[in-house]
């Protein structure tokens, strides 16, 4: 047998010491200088750093101008023109939001950070309350603070369809009685319709009662939100037209992110549903929104929609964009989530069914937790893409951070050779901070999910 093998060791070789002694420093040294390839790569990297990073540092700090009131401060300087950023900083963050009222967006930023931070830390207590505050209360509060609330709602369903106007323009505490009586009547009417429908379909009494309750519950929740945005809290109204800068970037991105995940999950479930109509509708929705470019969606929503809407009906420009972005990103999110759903083995579904779980409990307690954990990288990829896609709102005359920046370049008072580079460096740093933050947090989530699966 031994004759078949090319080499047979007959005696043990003496054991050797480890090639490089252990220890943190030695690990680095080994990584950088072990073998000719590593040495070559190390030298190349040092060369690259010297080539790129050093001039960048020189530009950003050493050669930069730090003080001044217009471009004359930066004319003799070869580095960054920081006074330009300083002079325009308010615009970069708030757009042309009135200066006296900028405490309101500040408060919204602060509240958001305060509510989001404990939500992201897994060990923080009161998760349910926290999530409720962030996903239900915070958007309404943010809306009221940023716009000033006091929407002055006048007509609901009946008012528009049947000219229901029993209270005329009478108001109580700044609220139009016509609207709220209309709202209540509409709620009762729809509840009655649900009951009638259930009777027609010969549903069981319990199901009919559930349908009625569901209608009333939806109206109650929506009513509470409407009441919050309709109340006159004495805040001066600020139009979305004067919003801009980082504020708009964040509003669009956060709305898109928060709305797209639940919508995307529903669409993904719909696409894999066994009910043909729901499946067809989901497929049509997803393929439609994936089939048109975001620019087209925004352009259509802004410039084409007014041509089709009847006179007097106008939807706020930013709101149109928000809806467009949310639907658009939901379609992409649906496909990411579907990838996760398909990765779950059939046995998981069957096991859940064998335990007697219904469709929703199967999904919520067995399938989705596993599926979402798998697609975290894809989801975050979507979020980061969405965050950067928000710059497309410039197309429809809304100035996000980049839009404000480009407009600021045109100010003759700041025309100078380094203004452009300084501005883009500043924007780049801000975008990087946000995107890298999201990416690192996603990495943490992945590690945690992996630990759970082990």
């Amino acid at each position, binding site marked *: 047998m031994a004759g078949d093998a090319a080499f047979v060791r007959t005696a043990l070789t003496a054991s050797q010491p480890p090639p490089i002694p252990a220890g943190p420093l030695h690990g680095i040294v080994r990584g950088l200088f072990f073998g000719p390839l590593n040495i070559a790569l190390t030298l190349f990297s040092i060369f690259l750093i010297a080539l790129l990073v050093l001039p960048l540092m020189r530009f950003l700090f050493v050669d930069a101008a730090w003080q001044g009131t217009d471009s004359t401060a930066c004319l003799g300087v070869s580095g960054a023109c920081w006074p330009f950023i300083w002079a325009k900083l308010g615009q970069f963050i708030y757009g042309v939001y009135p200066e006296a009222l900028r405490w309101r967006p500040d408060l919204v930023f602060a509240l958001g950070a305060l509510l989001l931070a404990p939500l992201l830390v897994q060990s923080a207590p009161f998760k349910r309350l926290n999530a409720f505050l962030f996903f239900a209360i915070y958007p309404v509060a943010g809306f009221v603070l940023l716009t000033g609330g006091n929407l002055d709602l006048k007509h609901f369903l009946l008012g528009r369809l049947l000219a229901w106007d029993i209270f005329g323009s009478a108001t109580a505490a700044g609220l139009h009685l016509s609207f709220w009586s209309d709202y209540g009547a509409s709620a009762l009417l729809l509840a009655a319709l649900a009951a009638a429908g259930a009777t027609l379909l010969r549903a069981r009494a319990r199901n009919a009662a559930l349908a009625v309750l569901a209608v009333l519950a939806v109206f109650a929740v929506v009513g509470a939100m409407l009441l919050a945005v309709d109340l006159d809290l004495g805040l001066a109204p600020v139009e979305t037209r004067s919003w801009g800068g980082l504020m708009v970037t964040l509003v669009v991105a956060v709305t898109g992110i928060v709305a797209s995940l639940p919508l995307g999950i529903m669409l993904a479930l719909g696409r894999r549903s066994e009910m043909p109509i729901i499946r067809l509708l989901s497929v049509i929705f997803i393929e439609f929104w994936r089939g048109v470019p975001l620019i087209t969606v925004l*352009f259509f929503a802004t410039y084409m929609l*007014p041509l089709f809407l009847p006179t007097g009906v106008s939807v706020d420009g930013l709101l149109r964009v928000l809806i467009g972005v949310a639907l658009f990103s939901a379609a992409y999110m649906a496909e990411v989530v579907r990838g996760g759903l398909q990765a779950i083995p059939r046995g998981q579904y069957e096991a859940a069914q064998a335990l007697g779980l219904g469709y929703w409990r199967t999904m919520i307690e067995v399938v989705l937790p596993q599926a979402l954990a798998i697609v975290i990288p894809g989801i975050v990829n979507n979020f980061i893409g969405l965050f950067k896609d928000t710059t497309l709102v410039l197309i429809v005359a809304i100035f996000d951070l980049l*839009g404000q920046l480009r407009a600021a370049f045109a100010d*003759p008072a700041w025309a100078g050779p380094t203004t452009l580079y300084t501005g883009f460096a500043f924007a780049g740093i801000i975008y990087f901070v946000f995107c890298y933050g999201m990416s690192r947090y996603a990495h943490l989530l992945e590690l945690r999910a992996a630990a759970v699966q082990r």
Partner: protein
Amino acid sequence: MHRFVYALLIIAGFSVSTARVEAAVLDQIKAKGFLQCGVSQGIPGFSSPDDKGNWTGLDVDVCRAIAAAIFNDPTKVKYTPLSAKDRFTALQSAEIDVLSRNTTWTLSRDTSLGLNFTGVIYYDGQGFMVRKDKKVNSALELSGASVCTQTGTTTELNVADFFRSRKMKYDIVAFATADETVKAYDSGRCDVFTTDVSQLTAEKLKLAKPDDHIILPEIISKEPLGPVVRQGDEQWFDVVKWTLYAMINAEELGVTSKNVTEMTKSPNPEIKRLLGIEGKFGEALGLSNDWGVRILKHVGNYGEIFDRNVGANSKLNIDRGLNKLWSKGGLQYAPPIR
């Protein structure tokens, strides 16, 4: 079949309602309490936000003058910053009432877009900028040069016309935005930078050494820039047009924002008509008779807004050139108010 009929009805309803939108722009503006003005997303001297976030510039002052004429308050304007390609759509869909955005008056734009040009606020033309050390004194010596320009603009076509008709060789190096183009020129990617002369002057400030560059004397195109309105509302067309004419007439008559109050006592009948002391010219436009006073008091005459935004009192320091009054050898000429 029923569904089809229903769909038709909806479409018919929409077309009726869109037709209604077109009626009486001036009344709509008065009702909503502000003018919706389309400006650029940033063109130095014409429309750009200053450090406080207020829009300033020549095009912006046109908007302010119209608002002053209507409301006696130049701040009752809402600005919609538009890119070059979206500007006409925004006007057609009534998102804006008037487009005051550095827009060249051409036949095709005037005829096929359903728009009307109201006049010329700035006579511009395309020119060339080169480095002084190239020792070029005329555009006719540019054969074989590489030319930096912005892609998708008429400037690109004008360059082609200019060089081809003279059988000169050239290379186009095109970029998406003005900022990129000027940076490319500054870093030596091309020998010549071409765009409208007002822009050349503004972009020159962004060069590392502005004094090392000159703008050649040849102007190779006509670029009359002016405000645009939708077709189909003659009254509104007249309001915008005569707001421009009032500012030009005022300069010719020596009425400025500073002396307008004293000038109301002037014996000159032309000034009296401009300032609404004589005649009912404001009412004929659907405005009040002191519309001229309002424009001049809040915004100023044509010479003032030119100097303040692009001329001698601005960083751009552009020569009046073609934009001098007709009486001083320029092209700015307004029909008389009578």
